[in-house]
Structure formats: C-alpha cells, structure tokens
C-alpha cells in the first residue's frame, strides 16, 4: 500500500499492578508519554479512538465517558471500540481508517485495561451465547488449553515435545522482557523451570500463561501531510487485515484457523509480503499462552503446518534469529487486555522507527503486529514499514 497513514509516536504506562493511580490517571500516563514523544499537544489531535475489553472488567459501563478526562478529549471526536481480545488491534485499525478517510490528519489511539480491580476470568467466562456456550465456558485458559490439545492431536505431535518448545518460548519472552522498561513480568528462567511449574489448566502451566496487568497504551497515527513533520522516520502502515469466524467451538477448526489465515493473507497481500520469513524483520505476535506462538509460526507462514516446534528449537524467532518474535516479551509478560493489541502495534512501530531501546532489532524495516480475540474468533494484523 502507498504511504498514506503512519504511526509517528507511542506511549506506554509502566504495566503491572497499579493501585497508585485511578483508571483515567493510568490512561493519562500513556497519553502524556505519546504526546511528549511526538511534541504534540491535545490541541493538535483531531480525533480519539479509545478501547478496552468489556466494561465489566473494571465494573464500569461505557468507560470512555469517564476516561475522557484522563485523555483530555474534551470537545473532540471520541469513538469507543471493543472487540474482545483483539480490541487493541481494532482500536489501531479504527485510528488507521480515521486517517485513511481523509477527514482527520492526527488521530490518537488509546487502549487500556485495569484488571487488578476486578476478576478477569470471572468476566471472560460470561462471554458467548447465554444458552449454548456460557453454561460450560470456563474462561480463557481452559478455552485455549483446548486449542493446544487439539493442536497436538491434529498433527500427531508428542505432548512432551510441544511442551518443551513452548517452554523455550516462555524462556525467550520472559528474558526479553528484562530489556523492556514497560513490561510487567520479567524473569530469567530455564526450560526446566517452566516444565516444572504448576499446572493451571492441563497442559498449560504457570509460566505458559500471561499475567493480568493494569496498563494503557497510546499511539499517534498521522496522515502523509503531517507525518514527516512529527517524526523523522515514521512507521508507515503497509497492510491491514481483520477477520472473524464461528463462535461455536464445535463448528470450527481451531488449529488450522480460517479467521487467522484470512486476516494474515489480507495484510500480506496489501503489504506485498510474499515470503514472510524473508520480508519481515520482526513480529509482535499475540501470545497470551506459549503454545499459541507455535501456532502463529505456522499460520503466518514462517514454517509448514505442524512444524512450529522446529522454529522454536532452531532459534529463528529469538532476538538474534532471522525473524525475532516478540522481542518486547509479548503479551506473555504484559497483558492489559484492551491495550495489548495496541502495544503490539506500538512495539512494531518502535522497531521500525528505531525507538525500541534495549530490545531494538538492528535495521528493522518491516514489522508485523497481531492480535486475537473472541471465542477463538477474531484476528487482526497490521504491517508497518519504512
């Protein structure tokens, strides 16, 4: 796609347990950092897109009305977007379309969640059709544990091999997070530490699972007209894609996942990505659970179906590999859900703009950001480049 919309700056909170601030204050921290980085004030912002998961997570309906004060949105267009786990990506896409419409030059995307004040799994288990799904839907961990077991069985893999490869991903992400000043959980682990940690929901163990986090992320999108004035090297949006499929688990193939393949193909086609392993320099994949990263390697075309384990083993996706995945630590280490997808975009943009600090991948020119959500339904992809 031609250069029409770019990311010109980002801001993130220090994610974690944030009892020191109210929700609007938390959001303000991210917005202020994004404005500082871009040397903009709220007066320069034409519109705001704001998103979080269901308001039940914070016990407040229509939270954008309240967050207006923390953002400084008074007198400006505000739109609340919520698409479950993929919310952060949907917020980024909405900001992208605001600018692409030609009606807005500078748009602030804000994603946030403050989970320590509520019960995330309690809320997530209230998803889905109230008659057929909800009575037995046990929340995110068990939902994705099903996907993992399906993965092992569909390709005839050995669970111990998959668990070991997943553990390597856990070691990689938690260690990379040490270089990310905003990350929530950071740790030096061994594969053995992960394999011996307690089971949360078989086959997932403690170190296979993301935490719940308080956090916010703000990303400034700009038109061709103003992008170069705001950032010397903006991260241009090269491709976007989003797709959703069946809500009923029994209706779908959750391993060779149609919605994911569709979203990826749309973004690759738009960005002209033919050989992702070669054409991409870094990827920020949505990995709330270690096993899923193996799936993404396959569904994003980094390897053949059923061969994700090989990618984890041969180090291609480590920071020194050909295609580093989640050098920020990913959402395995930091997961304020409504912000998470937007953090993937922010991290990808930072890599392209050369602003990723200690976890910068040298000479990263093209980066992919991804988010997923719903009852294993929604996938969104954004590709950014120079």
């Amino acid at each position, binding site marked *: 796609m031609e250069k029409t919309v770019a990311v010109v700056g980002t801001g993130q909170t220090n994610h974690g347990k944030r009892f020191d601030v109210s929700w609007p204050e938390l959001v303000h921290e991210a917005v202020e950092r994004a404005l500082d980085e871009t040397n903009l004030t709220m007066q320069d912002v034409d519109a705001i897109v704001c998103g979080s998961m269901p308001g039940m997570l914070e016990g407040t309906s229509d939270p954008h009305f*309240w967050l207006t004060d923390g953002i400084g949105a*008074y007198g400006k267009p505000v739109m609340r977007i919520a698409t479950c786990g993929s919310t952060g990506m949907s917020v980024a896409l909405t900001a992208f379309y605001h600018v692409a419409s030609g009606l807005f030059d500078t748009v602030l995307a804000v994603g946030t969640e403050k989970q320590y004040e509520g019960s995330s799994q309690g809320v997530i288990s209230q998803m889905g059709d109230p008659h057929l799904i909800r009575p037995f839907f046990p929340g995110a961990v068990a939902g994705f544990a099903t996907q993992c077991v399906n993965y092992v069985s569909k390709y005839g893999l050995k669970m111990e091999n998959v668990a070991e490869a997943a553990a390597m991903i856990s070691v990689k992400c938690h260690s990379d997070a040490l270089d990310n000043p905003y990350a929530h959980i950071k740790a030096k682990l061994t594969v053995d530490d992960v394999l011996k940690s307690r089971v949360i929901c078989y086959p997932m163990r403690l170190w296979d699972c993301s935490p719940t986090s308080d956090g916010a992320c703000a990303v400034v999108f700009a038109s061709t007209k103003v992008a170069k004035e705001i950032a010397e090297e903006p991260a241009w949006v090269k491709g976007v894609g989003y797709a959703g499929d069946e809500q009923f688990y029994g209706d779908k193939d959750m391993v060779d996942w149609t919605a994911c393949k569709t979203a990826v193909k749309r973004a690759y086609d738009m960005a002209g990505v033919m050989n992702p392993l070669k054409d991409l320099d870094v990827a920020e994949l949505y990995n709330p659970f270690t096993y899923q990263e193996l799936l993404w390697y396959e569904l994003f075309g980094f390897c053949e179906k059923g061969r994700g384990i090989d990618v984890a083993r041969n180090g291609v996706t480590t920071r020194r590999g050909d295609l580093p995945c989640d050098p920020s630590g990913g959402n395995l280490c930091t997961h304020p859900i409504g912000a998470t997808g937007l953090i993937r975009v922010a991290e990808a943009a930072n890599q392209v703009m050369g602003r990723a600090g200690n976890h910068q991948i040298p000479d990263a020119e093209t980066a992919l950001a991804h988010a997923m959500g719903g009852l294993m339904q929604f996938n969104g992809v954004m590709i950014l480049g120079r």
Partner: protein
Amino acid sequence: MTVNEVAVVGFAQTKHRARIRNQSSSDLVYQVTREALDSCSLTAKDIGTLIESSSDYWEGTCCSDVVTMEAAGGYLKEESKVEDDGALAFIYGYLRIRSGLFDTALIVSQTHCSQSPPLPTLSNLSCDPFYQRPIGLEEQAAAALQMTAYMKKYGATEEDVAQVAVKNLGNAVNNPYAHRKVKTDIDRVIKSKVTAYPLRELTSSPTSDGACAVILASGKKAKQITDTPVWIKGIGHSVDDYFLGDRNLMENIGLRSAAKQAYKRASIDNPLKQLDVAEICEPYAHQELLWTEHLGLCGKGQGAKLLREGVTTMNGSLPVNPSGGVLSTNPYVARGLIRIAEASAQLMGKAGKRQVGDAETGLCHSVSGLGGQLHCVVVLGK
C-alpha cells in the same frame, strides 16, 4: 487511496416494542440484516465490511459482537464493534468506505432492553465508582437536573416541554415501527406520573426492544445499487466533559462541536433554511428544545418558541422527529442508527404516512452519556 463519496442505499428496522419475547439479540440482528440486504437487492457476499454497535452491559454479555457477528453475515468479514450509539458505528462505516478500501458496509445496532436491568441501574454503572456512582447519579437524574436548569434559566414551563411529547408521540401514530404512540394533549402529559421530577412518564423515553441496519456504498457502487441513493454530506461527533458538576448543562460543547464539524463538511451555514427534515435524539422531551438550540436551528432558550410557532411540526418548514423520535422508541444503542434510517427513508420518499414534503436535505443526531455527553451529527442529502 482515493476518497470516495458515500451513500446510504438500504436500511431496515424491527417493529420496536416494550418486549420482543420470541427473538434473541442475534435473531433481531439477523432480521434487520436480511431485510436491509433485501431492501437493496444485495446478498451478504456483496458486503465488504461490517460495523456493529451494541453495549455489553445492555446485552448482559461480555464482548457482545462475539454472539451477533455471524447473524449479521460477518463470517470472515472485516468486522469491528463500536461500543456506543449506532450513529457512531455509521460514522465508522462511512470512514472505512471513504478510505477506498471498501465499496460497501453494513451497520447493525440492537438492544433488547426488556432483558436488561432498568435504565437507572445500568446508567448508574456508567458513572465512575468514586464520586458520581455513590451519590446515585444516573441518566434520568442527570436529565431531571438539566430540565430544572433549563426552566430556571430560560423561564420555560412544564407545558413548553410537554408540547414536545404531544408532537412526537402524535407523529409516532404514523410510524408502523414505533413503540409508544398516542394522540395526547399537554394536560395529559403534565399529569402523567413523575419519574424524576420534573420529568414525567410521557416526557421521558421508554425502553424498547429493537434493532436497525443500514447499508452504505461508495459513489459508483451506490448508483448501480439504487436509483435513490442518499448521500452523506457531512459528519461530526464530539464529547463533553465527564463530571456533571464540571459542565454547563445549558451549553453542550459536544453537540456544538459535532454540529460545527458536520455543517462545515456539508457546507451548511443556515441550518434552519437549508435543512428539510431532522431526526433528533430526545430521550427526554426538554432535550429536543435544547438540542435544536445547540444545532443552531434557533437561538439560546428559543427552542420552545420554535415549536410553538409550528416550525418543527409535521407541517412546519423543518419537521423534527416525524418518526416520533426517541420519546416513542428507544432500543437504547440502536436509537441513533434509527434516526439515520428514518431520515434516509424521508429523502428516498419511502416514509409512508410520516413522509414530509420535498425533503432534499436531512439531519440526524444521536446522543449518549449523562446529560448528553457525546453527540453525533450526520447530514444527508439527495
């Protein structure tokens, strides 16, 4: 990317009622999706992108679009959900087509109010948990404070406000989709039950079950689909401060700013003269008076005079809410999209008994949040 002209080419709404027992939210969404597609002879395959609008609290479901997306034909579509009024989803669909990446968009919005807790309970939960929620603030209470302030500031009377209900509930008699419709008079309105003084049963909207869908198309495509496309001339949306005490409830910055953006884009400098019909969200009767002032249809405090002079009645020069408005029909988040469907019907000449004469340019307005914190304005034209 090219910037496209965008038009409304089809729409549908349910027959809104206090309670629709035999259909789920997904059934309502399916019904309006099917009927909107049929209204312009399209199939789900022809739709490029889907924008939904619903509220998790009102639906009693986390991530409500998870449940309804397939019913809206959203399988593998570029979908998104605006968690706010349907008019905002409409604006988002418009932006997507303008980007040049899509030729068609389906916008769907629904609320099944009868399955939810009462409005005061839910709107209290949209208050922050520290300051506004503990004092019991909610939408009706905020609107009651606003109406009191309006009467005090401009010397308006309960009778002035009751006129709005008489007009809109009377207009609703001509609307087969309307929920509450009654030929009434000022006396009956001001003697109806107090809900939150000075608001009464007939000056406050009911809550309804219902859904609405609108189909948008890019310029070239729109002309292929229909002979009567309704063009989007301008949009605007904006938000006011959050805390009620921080705001001037008589001067809504959200609506002033939304109207200014929409009028500028639609090249409207004299709205009273240039508009032929308006569908304005008035969950509380006095708000129609206030919003007509903020929309620049008359001066401050002149809303009641405008109505008394008959300008905004069915036979006036700018009929406001020929459909009966939100006072008659209020499937909460869908009500803004219904305004757009109604104004489009007027401009297409398909409004049946509620049709106003020679409508060329129409205004649609939506509101959400306490005392009207967030407003959308859409100007449509032939």
